[in-house]
């Protein structure tokens, strides 16, 4: 038996590695996506003041700290049985929408776009953000940097630090906004709507008009039917900040719709001895191992999943884009994981449009942004849609609001099983009879990029490719060959 390691791949809230085992025929016996890291937030939350959790848990991930901040803040509302004033909820959603614009921008342009705009076969040295800027022009490149920056400036204006902002408090938000700030947010929002529309157009021009790309998106290697999870509003439209979590089956039919405090009836987690990360799955379907399909509890929680799980988008232009998406890809649900990039851009447009709606809302400058909790703290669950999946925070406190138990199901973790399956599929597709081509690097890399951009990380900036390395060991564990991208 041969063993191949791809080490390191980059981040899943840290580090990752792939171990591939070949059988005697040289085919892939199995491939394991190993997460060699744990930090134990669930444990050291114990003994902390519950209202501090929205400052503590964001350190799980500095790529999407706003998501942890919001999930924790909402869990605290629930713990204290306090309902924030309407303006506070809107401000939280405004803050969150600005973050979504920044985050989705980074992922599309820095991670995905080099593959498509420059092409998967472009020389790696050019397949990066700098090469991208070269191809699309400095003007566009600068526009991207600035759009992201302006969205982050809204986050900073409300939350102090731009990375690890602190804005929410149990019962509301810490800061009200002035008319001057509102006007600035509105101006930014208008620019960001245009930017989102531009991005969608770019995707259509570059990807959808190119048959090779469309074929790639539709190809078997990048197709994986599973359950799909996402948060929806009262009208079953996609929502990032609040609502119920809806799960649809591989057939697109609603499987379950649940409130945050019911999450334990729906989701369970599997522990494997060879990795530090747990595998969430749908409890009612059950854990059937790392397999896709209707009989396996494996689900995905990605931009594509959110679109699949919803009936549409709550803003007009995003809704148009949503309809076009399904019309082009042959109806709901879409199982082509590379379509996630397109879905992400539709969400980008929604986030920008929502940011505009909120920043022009007459109530948004209302100074009443906090209700002080009056009830005894007990227990609460808070859920938001992190860009990388449904994020659940659950706290149990004593009567003084000190955390006794904390449970967290983190965005990226939801997708651990599908990613692991995708990686194995990719390995099996490209490694045959002991022949290991460089293609594995690209295939495997594209497999995770579509599933989970956090693997590439928002900061995966300059070259636009994963630092992959394949090490091939003989049966005695002696290194025989190292394959890596030039």
């Amino acid at each position, binding site marked *: 038996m041969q063993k191949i390691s791809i080490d390191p791949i980059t981040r899943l809230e840290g580090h990752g590695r792939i171990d591939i085992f070949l*059988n005697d025929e040289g085919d892939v016996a199995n491939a394991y996506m190993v997460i060699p890291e*744990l930090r134990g937030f669930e*444990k*050291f939350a114990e003994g902390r003041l519950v209202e501090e959790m929205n400052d*503590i848990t964001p350190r799980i991930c500095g790529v999407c*700290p706003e998501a942890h901040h919001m999930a924790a803040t909402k869990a605290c509302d629930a713990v204290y049985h306090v309902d924030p004033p309407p303006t506070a909820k809107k401000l939280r959603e405004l803050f969150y929408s600005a973050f979504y614009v920044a985050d989705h921008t980074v992922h599309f342009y820095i991670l995905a776009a080099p593959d498509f705009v420059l092409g998967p076969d472009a020389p790696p040295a050019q397949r990066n953000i700098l090469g991208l800027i070269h191809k699309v022009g400095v003007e566009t490149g600068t526009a991207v940097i600035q759009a992201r920056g302006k969205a982050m400036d809204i986050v900073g204006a409300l939350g102090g630090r731009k*990375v690890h902002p602190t804005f929410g408090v149990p019962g509301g938000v810490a800061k009200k906004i002035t008319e001057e700030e509102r006007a600035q947010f509105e101006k930014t929002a208008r620019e960001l709507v245009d930017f989102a529309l531009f991005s969608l157009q770019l995707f259509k021009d570059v990807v959808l008009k190119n048959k090779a790309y469309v074929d790639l998106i539709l190809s078997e290697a990048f197709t994986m039917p599973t359950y799909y999870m996402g948060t929806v509003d009262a009208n079953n439209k996609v929502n990032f900040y609040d609502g119920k979590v809806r799960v649809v089956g591989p057939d697109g039919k609603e499987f379950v719709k649940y409130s945050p405090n019911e999450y334990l009836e729906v989701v369970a987690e599997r522990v494997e001895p060879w990795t530090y990360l747990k595998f969430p799955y749908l409890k009612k379907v059950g854990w059937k191992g790392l397999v896709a399909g209707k009989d396996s509890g494996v689900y995905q929680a990605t931009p594509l999943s959110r679109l699949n799980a919803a009936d549409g988008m709550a803003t007009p232009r995003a809704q148009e884009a949503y309809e076009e998406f399904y019309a082009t890809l042959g109806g709901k649900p879409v199982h082509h994981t590379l379509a996630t990039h397109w879905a992400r851009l539709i969400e980008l447009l929604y986030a920008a449009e929502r940011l505009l709606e909120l920043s022009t809302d007459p109530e948004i400058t209302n100074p009443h942004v906090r209700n002080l909790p009056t009830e005894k703290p007990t227990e609460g669950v808070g859920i938001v849609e992190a860009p990388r999946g449904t994020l659940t925070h659950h706290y149990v406190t004593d009567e003084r609001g000190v955390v006794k138990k904390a449970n967290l199901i983190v965005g990226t973790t939801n997708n651990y099983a599908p990613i692991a399956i995708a990686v194995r599929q990719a390995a099996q597709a490209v490694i045959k009879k002991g022949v290991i081509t460089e293609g594995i690097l690209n295939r495997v890399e594209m497999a995770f990029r579509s599933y989970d951009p956090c693997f590439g*990380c928002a*900061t995966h900036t300059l070259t636009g490719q994963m630092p992959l390395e394949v090490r091939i060991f003989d049966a005695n564990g002696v290194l025989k060959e190292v394959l890596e991208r030039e």
Partner: protein
Amino acid sequence: MGQNGKLKLGLYWAASCGGCEIAVVELREKLLIVDQVADIVFWPVATDFKYKDVEAYPDGYMDVCFFNGAIRTSENEHLAHLLRKKSKILVAFGSCAYEGCIPGLANLFDRESIFRRVYLESESVDNPNKVVPQTTYQMPEGEIHIPKFYNTVKTLAQVTDVDYFLPGCPPQDPQIWAVIEAIVAGKLPPKGSVVGANEKTVCDECKHVREEKKIKKFYRYHEIIPDSTKCLFDQGIICAGPATRGGCGALCTKVDIPCRGCYGPPPNVCDQGASLLAAVASVVDADTEEDARRIVSEILDPVGTFYRFSLPASLLHRARLS
């Protein structure tokens, strides 16, 4: 320095949240300037250099290496030693590498209790066979290894020699930029210095107006709507400003949230928590022992409050191992 006159720069994350990397991205257009003055020779999240490449570099090959993240596992420690060897200047970048940061609060527990919570007792886990991850595990196809999870989170300086410390969770981009400029200009202070921060406290940068503090009751910040012109601490909200090094521009207090201390202790303070504890005690308005006890007994999580960012670097480093 390379033949082209450009600096050789490395960036690495150990047990990190990635926020320090985003803080570098926050340099925005300035990143392109960095690209002009430095060759990045190792940055796993951004470039294609491998561990193997680093191993092959001659010792001291990198002029500067920014190391973010704490030492949580054996793999983190291994990389810390390797990068020390390959770098002329090793910078502990951000609170995790400098002082252990929020993830360092795990030092109130140990490996066993963390594993028990995460893998066995968590409400959503379904684990009838009581499986926990093993550093070496025999799968049907062969062995899989994962790094050892240590009992204790350590700072970078606790495992290797560090030249400079750049505080903040994360460091703020103007400060990162100032440090890069100092490096390029060859104007770094003596080895062992804190860089990218100020010599005073956060209070010195804070706009809230301070008066003489006298506190009969401490408030948790969800219990009170503070007057946003006055010092939060004066209003009974514990604020780490007086026990924290300036440099961020008092960002949190700008939005009426107390400072939690992410820039670490001010100059000449060896234990940030003890310093904040003393600051808190000094404002207690009590003339009898009983009163004092009653007032401070409302502080329910002293370690989590005083050592939010600095437990691993503190005098005691961690809670007692059973």
